[in-house]
């Protein structure tokens, strides 16, 4: 089931045809949604199934993801919007939303919808998800210490806050914060992504 590297699919995440596809989605071109799925469906599913670890639930969440993109595409800038990054963010957020209990959501989880605002997805690096970037992020992950790698996985695939990680790992919150900060710095440095 996990035979192909995700890098293969991430190659498809940013192509010169993005603007045209966004334009067609906005025009409600019936074939555009199918093409959007062909481009990003496997990526969205791969991320979500890694998070929820249930194929059936993952498919439901992928469906939610595409419907959300379909209904909100009007807000994405046709020329400057990065539909691939936006869609992957929405996919991950759907899985996060599923993973979080109502209590957890109430306690500390931010409003994920705010992170999905289309205006945040314009003027991104066009080739942020190009294949060599994907290879380099995997390589960068290998340079992290086991604890650093663990907190990044907790953060990305389980959506744990630093407090949750500290509790899960039985470590002081300050230690976890140090690991998270160091891990992000390593990844950013290895990937050549500018610091915020």
């Amino acid at each position, binding site marked *: 089931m996990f035979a*192909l590297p995700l*890098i293969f699919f991430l190659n498809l995440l940013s192509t010169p045809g993005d603007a045209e596809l966004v334009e067609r989605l906005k025009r409600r071109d019936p074939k555009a949604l*199918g093409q959007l799925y062909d481009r990003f469906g496997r990526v969205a*599913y*791969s991320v979500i199934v890694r998070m929820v670890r249930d194929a059936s639930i993952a498919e439901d969440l992928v469906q939610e993801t595409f419907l959300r993109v379909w209904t909100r595409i009007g807000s994405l800038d046709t020329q400057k919007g990065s539909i691939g990054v936006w869609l992957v963010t929405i996919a*991950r957020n759907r899985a996060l939303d599923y993973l979080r209990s109502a209590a957890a959501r109430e306690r500390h989880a*931010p409003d994920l919808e705010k992170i999905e605002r289309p205006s945040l*997805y314009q003027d991104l690096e066009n080739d942020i998800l190009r294949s060599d970037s994907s290879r380099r992020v995997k390589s960068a992950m290998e340079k992290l210490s086991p604890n650093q790698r663990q907190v990044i996985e907790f953060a990305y*695939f389980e959506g744990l*806050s630093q407090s949750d990680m500290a509790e899960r790992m039985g470590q002081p919150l300050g230690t976890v914060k140090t690991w998270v900060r160091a891990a992000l710095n390593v990844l950013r440095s290895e990937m050549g992504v500018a610091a915020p």
Partner: protein
Amino acid sequence: MNCEELRDHYDLYALGIAEEPECSEIAAHLERGCEACRKGVQKAIELSALLASTAPAAEPSAGLRRRILASAGVETRRFPWAPVWAAAAAFALVAAVYFGFEYQRAGEEALRLESQLRQEHGEVARLNEALAIISGPNTQETDFSAGQPRPPRGKVFVNPGQGVLLIASNLAPAPLGKLYEMWVIPKTGKPAPAGLFQSEANGTAIHIQRGAVDVAATAAVAVTLESEQGAAQPTSQPLIVAQLSRPAGGR
């Protein structure tokens, strides 16, 4: 808090794991158009997106694409039962009224299906559309069960302003690579394609073709089995033919 104090939290915000008060502060900065925070969060989003590539590649089922397109109303190929009680109630109503007479256990079946109503969107709107067509003042209703030598059975509702609704039972799911295609057949001229659909495993199907219909100029609504891509003109014998014998507004 100022932007400098929030810088270290942009990554956590982009990952959806920022805690308070920083989370609300960043959201507030973005809300009021703070350019420094917007750029910072965008850089964080780029890094976050890269982490997607660390997930092992996995393959969804072959039917997911079709399910998504159908639920978006782009192609009505399968009837994806909706996730909310409103959909359950709407479905129970449709099923009880239009299948119930022929199948006494349809109500029980609808209740059983309620348990499946999770995580899917779009169907409520589709059922509302169906109910709007059924209850429309100028809707013409045609039973295509009568005179059929064999199943499928069911009804077609044609509303001049809203479109065509087909409800069928005893319609076995189309085989792999095939789908059902509905046709609006004018009194003169060629049949017009009216959308592809698939029936459920239990043989039921609901298909809506939206848009205006010239009822007076329409002779019949028909269904044929076609390739998955659909056909411009029917290529097989009709499985369903509903003759529109009564004038519009005849309900």
